[in-house]
C-alpha cells in the first residue's frame, strides 16, 4: 500500500503533556494544576442567551464572517477596552476559537521559505501551524531575566531577509508575562523598519493585573501590519463554546475569510448568540474573575517566597512559571517526581519550547482552597528535595 500521509504532518510532534495526562487521570486524589482554562463556568446570563437561541430555533448557519450583531459588539468592545477601531464588515470575522484564527492566519500569509518568528516559551500551536502552512519557524528564546518579555535586541538578532511574520504571544501562556506599551513601541519600531507583519495573540488580554492590556495594533503605523487574534475562551470562561475572532487589514482578512468559508463555513451559531451577551453585558463578570485570579496570583507568589522558590512575578493570564533549576532535575523529571511523590501535577516548561527547560507551569485557574492544598504538597516536595 502507498503511504497515505503527508510528509510534513508526520514530522510534527504530538503534545508533550499527553504522558502526564494519562498518569493524572488514573491517579486517585491527584491534584492537577495543569489546566489551561478557567475554572469558572460561563456566566449564567451568557449561557442563558445560548439556551434561548436554541429555544428560538436558531440552529442554522450564520454568514461566513459571523453574526453582524456580534461583530458590531466586538468592535465596540475592542474600542472601549483597547482603543482599537475596526470596520466590522471588512476587517474582522468570527472564528472557531483563537485556535482557528492562528491556523488560517499562517495559511493565508506564508509562502514556502517565509520565516515566522516565534518567541518561546509560548502556546503550543504556533509552531505546528507555521510548519503546516509551509513556513519556516524561527524560535526566539525569551529570558527570565527580562521577565520573559520580548526585547528589541532579541528580535533584531532573529530577523533575516526572509522574515515575514512575528508572533506576539502576550499576555503569555505559560509564563504569565505581559508587554507594556514601552516594550511594544521598541518592537513596533523594528517591525516597521524591517517591513514585517505581526500576529498578535491577545486571547488573555482581559486578564492583566498591573495595567490594562495594550494591543500593538494601537501603536502608530502598526494597524496595517497587525492581525489581532482574540476570543471569549479565557476572558469570559467560554472555552467549550469554541469562539474567537480576528481583526486586521482588509487585504489579509479577505483572504483568510476564504479559507474559513471553505474549511469551516461559520463559527457555532448558538455560541455566537451567547457571545453577543458576553460583549454587551459581560464587563462586570470579567472584572470579578480578574479580581479572583489576581488574589490567587498573589497567594501563589507569597507561597513561593515562603518556600524560597524562585519565580519572577507575572502580571498576566492565569499562570506562574517558577524556576526549578536548583533541584538539578529536568523540568520533565521534576514534574514526574512531583506527581509520583506528592500527587501534584504541573506542566513541565519544555512543553512550551526547549527554552522552558528549568521551569514548570502552574495554573491558578483553581479555587484558593485547592491552591492551598497544592502549595502544601509542593512545599513538602521542595523541602524533601533540598534535604537530598
Amino acid at each position, binding site marked *: 500500500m502507498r503511504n497515505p500521509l503527508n510528509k510534513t504532518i508526520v514530522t510534527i510532534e504530538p*503534545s508533550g*503533556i*499527553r504522558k*502526564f*495526562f494519562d498518569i*493524572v*487521570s488514573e491517579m486517585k486524589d*491527584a491534584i*492537577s494544576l*495543569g*489546566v*489551561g*482554562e478557567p*475554572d469558572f463556568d460561563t456566566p449564567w446570563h451568557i449561557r442563558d442567551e445560548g439556551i434561548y437561541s436554541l429555544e428560538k430555533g436558531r440552529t442554522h448557519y450564520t454568514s461566513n464572517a459571523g453574526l453582524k450583531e456580534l461583530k458590531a459588539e466586538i468592535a465596540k468592545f475592542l474600542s472601549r477596552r483597547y482603543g482599537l477601531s475596526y470596520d466590522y464588515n471588512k476587517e474582522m470575522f468570527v472564528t472557531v476559537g483563537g485556535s482557528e484564527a492562528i491556523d488560517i492566519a499562517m495559511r493565508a500569509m506564508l509562502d514556502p521559505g517565509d520565516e515566522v518568528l516565534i518567541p518561546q516559551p509560548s*502556546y*503550543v500551536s504556533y509552531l505546528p501551524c507555521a510548519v503546516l502552512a509551509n513556513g519556516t519557524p524561527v524560535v526566539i528564546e525569551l529570558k527570565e531575566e527580562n521577565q520573559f518579555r520580548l526585547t528589541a535586541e532579541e528580535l533584531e538578532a532573529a530577523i533575516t531577509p526572509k522574515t515575514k511574520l512575528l508572533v506576539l504571544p502576550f499576555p503569555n*501562556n505559560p509564563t504569565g508575562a505581559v508587554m507594556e506599551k514601552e516594550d511594544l513601541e521598541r518592537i513596533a519600531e523594528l517591525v516597521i523598519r524591517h517591513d514585517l507583519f505581526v500576529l498578535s495573540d491577545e486571547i488573555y488580554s482581559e486578564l492583566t493585573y498591573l495595567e490594562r492590556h495594550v494591543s500593538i495594533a494601537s501603536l502608530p503605523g502598526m494597524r496595517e501590519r497587525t492581525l489581532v487574534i482574540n476570543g471569549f475562551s479565557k476572558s469570559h470562561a467560554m472555552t467549550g463554546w469554541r469562539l474567537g475572532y480576528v481583526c486586521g487589514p482588509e487585504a489579509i482578512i479577505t483572504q483568510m475569510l476564504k479559507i474559513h468559508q471553505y474549511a469551516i463555513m461559520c463559527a457555532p451559531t448558538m455560541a455566537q448568540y451567547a457571545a453577543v451577551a458576553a460583549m454587551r453585558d459581560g464587563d462586570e463578570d470579567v472584572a470579578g474573575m480578574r*479580581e479572583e485570579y489576581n*488574589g*490567587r496570583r*498573589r*497567594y501563589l507568589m*507569597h507561597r513561593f517566597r515562603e518556600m524560597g522558590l524562585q519565580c519572577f512575578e507575572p502580571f498576566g493570564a492565569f499562570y506562574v512559571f517558577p524556576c526549578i533549576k536548583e533541584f538539578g532535575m529536568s523540568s520533565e523529571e521534576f514534574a514526574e517526581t512531583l506527581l509520583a511523590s506528592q500527587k501534584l*501535577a504541573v*506542566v513541565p516548561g519544555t*512543553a*512550551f519550547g526547549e527554552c522552558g527547560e528549568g521551569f514548570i507551569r502552574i495554573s491558578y485557574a483553581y479555587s*484558593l482552597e485547592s491552591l*492551598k492544598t497544592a502549595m502544601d504538597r509542593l512545599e513538602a516536595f521542595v523541602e524533601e528535595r533540598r534535604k537530598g
Partner: protein
Amino acid sequence: MREKILTFIEKNSRIDLKELAIVLGVEESAVINELEQMEAEHIICGYHTIIDWDKVGQDKVMAMIEVRVTPQRGMGFDKVAERIYNYPEVNAVYLISGGFDFMVILEGKTLREVAQFVSDKLSPLDSVLSTKTNFILKKYKDHGTVIASKTKDERIQMIP
C-alpha cells in the same frame, strides 16, 4: 479596601486573616483594623453559617409570613418591626413594598410550632391586620450559595 474585604468575606467569612491579607495584597494588621472598625460601625453585623439542616436529619421548618399592619400613631413601621423582631423565633424581618408590609421569616421545629407562633404571638399584636403563612418546602439557594451538592471539576486535567 473595605469593599474588597467585604466582597471576599461575604462569600467566605472563615478565611484566615493572614491569607486574606495576602490575597488582597495588604498588611494583615490593616485587614484586622478594617474588620474591627467595620464591626464597631455595624457594617459587619454578624458571621453566620449556611447549613443544609435536611442532611443533619434534624427537623426544621421555615416559613415566610406576609404581614399587613397599621402603623400606629407615634410609632411608624420601625416600632412595629421591633415588636416582631424581638422574638427569638423570628429569623428575619423586612419592610416590603407591594401588597403587604413586612416579610417575616420564622424558624421552628414543626409546622405546628410555627403556626402556633403566628396565631398566638404575631396575629394578636395590636397593629397587625392580617398574616399569610408560606411554608418553605425546599431550599435551593441561600445567601448566594446553591445548596445542592457541589459539582466536581470536570475539566480535562492537563491542557496546554
